[in-house]
């Protein structure tokens, strides 16, 4: 469905000629996100304010034009891909950090603000915004709201949802709403804020966000612990959590991941190393010291091969760099990957690890898994050659088995990447028909014309 000239002219009038485009050359550049799926929009528009967003929405509502919200396009499930064409609405120009309030521990931001910019801005003032997706240097807060992004620190601090106090957003019909509070508590009416966070841009277009901040922890210590067996590592994780110390991150890397990142590490891994845990503890100096000691003791008892503490910030940063390099580097193994971010209850991690191993053996493919073990979130990457039909089929089968195992163990099929396009087919495995129906009805209440990010989440 190509866009008619008068609608395009109208868009130009709303935002200014230089902030809307329909050149094929530009459209192609806004046709994808980090999934590799690509679909051309009819136009791309760059509003600068909430008023402009509302005006665009009103026009779209009237003309029944799909609007696809887009931050940085780093999503892993196709959320920002204009699968039914329409107008991609990019938030890059709405990049103001409006206020940082150190007295009430809040920050008010526009959706286009880059997450690591926010980290930097608040940390300079002794404050702390915990959610830290590996993509923080590029992704937008709006996108984090869309997907309810998590990150390593979620173990202790939770995910984006926990830090959103209130929102301003534009409904598909163009009305502007304000949800939530600017206080630490608030229970008036239904919790629309939580409904919108994680809705993948299908309910409302977020235009302003009030975030909760914390005081910046005084001290952080970072540990790297090797094991000769993935199962031992997994058991150590659930054991540590039972010690009543909550590290702020517990990341784990399996054998295949270690093979990929060992060149990025600053220390040599023991030959028998088959799994690595990266742990971080934060708080005041005394607590950090006692908790670090507790964890080190426990790891020794759990037969860790090697335990090392980063001596300074640079060493810790190097460890995280290696972890950050992992996701992109996977392509060294095979040209195609199916990335699943499953979550299981922490106590079931050892079982899940065993199940993954079985699935891997049965499929004959390489499966690389790593992730935020502290909250049971495992990034499972099934690697295959896309030119090889039988491998592609095996990979698909492996995904089915993976989800089956996850759900059997009481888990969920997506911890932080969302459903988008790529997990649409699996949603009904986890969500029952009554609940699905309820969700679809909620969508219809917000968007009876199905114009805001259509064709996502529900098959």
């Amino acid at each position, binding site marked *: 469905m190509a866009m008619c000239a008068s609608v395009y002219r109208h868009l130009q009038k709303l935002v200014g000629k230089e902030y809307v485009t329909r050149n094929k050359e530009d459209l192609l550049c806004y046709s994808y996100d*980090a999934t590799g799926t690509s679909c051309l929009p009819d136009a791309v528009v760059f509003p600068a304010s909430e008023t402009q967003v509302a005006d665009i929405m009103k026009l779209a509502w009237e003309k029944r034009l799909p609007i696809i919200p887009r931050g940085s396009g780093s999503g892993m499930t196709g959320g920002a891909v204009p699968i039914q064409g329409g107008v991609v609405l990019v938030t*890059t120009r709405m990049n103001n950090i409006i206020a940082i309030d150190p007295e009430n521990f809040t920050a008010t931001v526009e959706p286009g603000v*880059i997450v690591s910019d*926010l980290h*930097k801005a608040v940390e300079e003032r002794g404050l702390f915004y915990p959610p830290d997706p590996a993509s923080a240097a590029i992704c937008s807060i709006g996108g984090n709201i869309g997907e309810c992004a998590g990150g390593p620190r979620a173990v202790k601090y939770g995910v984006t949802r926990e830090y959103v106090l209130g929102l301003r957003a534009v409904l598909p019909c163009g009305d502007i709403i304000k949800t939530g509070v600017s206080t630490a508590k608030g229970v008036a009416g239904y919790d629309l804020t939580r409904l919108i966070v994680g809705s993948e841009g299908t309910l409302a277009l977020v235009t302003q966000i009030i975030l909760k901040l914390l005081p910046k922890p005084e001290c952080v210590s970072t540990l790297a612990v090797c094991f000769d067996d993935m199962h031992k590592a997994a058991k150590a994780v659930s054991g540590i959590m039972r010690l009543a110390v909550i590290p702020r991150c517990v990341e784990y890397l399996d054998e295949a991941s270690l093979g990929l990142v060992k060149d990025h590490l600053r220390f040599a891994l023991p030959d028998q190393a088959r799994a690595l845990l990266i742990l971080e503890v934060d708080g005041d100096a005394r607590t950090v010291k006692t908790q670090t000691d507790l964890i080190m003791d426990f790891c020794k008892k759990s037969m860790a091969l090697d335990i090392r503490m980063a001596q300074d910030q640079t060493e810790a940063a190097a460890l995280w760099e290696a972890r950050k390099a992992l996701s992109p580097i996977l*392509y060294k193994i095979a040209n195609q990957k199916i990335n699943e971010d499953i979550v299981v209850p922490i106590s079931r991690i050892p079982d899940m690890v065993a199940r993954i191993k079985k699935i891997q053996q049965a499929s004959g493919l390489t499966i690389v898994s790593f992730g935020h073990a502290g909250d049971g979130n495992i990034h499972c990457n099934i690697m295959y050659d896309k030119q090889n039909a039988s491998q592609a089929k095996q990979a698909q089968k492996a995904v089915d088995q993976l989800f089956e195992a996850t759900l059997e163990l009481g888990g969920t099929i997506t911890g932080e990447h969302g459903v988008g396009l790529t997990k649409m087919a699996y949603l009904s495995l986890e969500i029952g028909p009554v609940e699905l129906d309820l969700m679809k009805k909620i969508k219809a209440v917000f968007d009876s014309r199905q114009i805001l990010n259509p064709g996502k989440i529900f098959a």
Partner: protein
Amino acid sequence: METKEKTRFKHLEKWESTLSACIRCGYCFEHCPMFKYTGWESDAPRAKIITAFGLLSGELEPTEMAADKIFNCFYCKRCEAACSSGVTLTEVFTDAKKDLVEMGLRGPGTTSVTYLNCARCLACVKACPHEARFHGEDGIETDPVKCQACGICVEVCPAGAAKIEHNFGTGREDLITESTQFLSTHASAKAIVFACNWSYYPDMQASRLPESETHDKDYEIYVNMCAGRLESQLLMAPFLHKAWGVLVAACPEDECQHKNGNTRAKKLIQGLQSTLERVNIDPARLQVVEIPAGDKTLFQAEIDTFIDRLNAMGPIR
């Protein structure tokens, strides 16, 4: 994407597998000065790879606009350093440029051009670190494939005839306007820092702070691409607007992407330091520091030291 028909992109063709190795993660674009300037994905390295892919697969026609995008690159190679999938982006762009030039599409994008007032003094031909400038049939010309938009020819040309038209805010006029504006609107302003895109930013990438948070800033960082293109007029301008000092960040000598940018900058600054001395201004108010690729911590430390030193010296009387 499969290549539909026989492609006209003979040079680009060999990158087909590299192009599909790009996983579109976006790690590259936070580093690109063009993206930071315009905020348009289509100016970001990831999009240029997609564009190259589009051209190769036939999905995109080789239009002037597509060509202009590919010709827009300062060859700072920050994107390559950031890409963990090992995509050699600038090599891909260079080969795409070769094909486009054969089709009669020459950008110019960021490549330098020569205006009619060229005096044919050959200063640029001698200075160009990439042997991109030559005396051709129509006077001094630029080979658009070889040119890496370092801007050195713009700096050396005595007639002001060598120009980079799309400079994404890194041209002399832009930098002078921006830095003057900063100095005149911030009572607390003390220093201007010019950094090449390698030595980089310990700074915000693409978001803006409220005025209340920035009104008491004492310095501002501007990216000038290669230190080799710094000009005396640019470096001295802040002093005319009450700056206490100017700091220049360049790559270490053997790391300069444009061969001798670092040494050029040092020479220029030495000369300017003696000028300052002659007018009784402490030459330490103009300094150059070497920062290895993306070492943000060192850069911040150097800035802090510089500001401390300026504080000890006080304003210029």
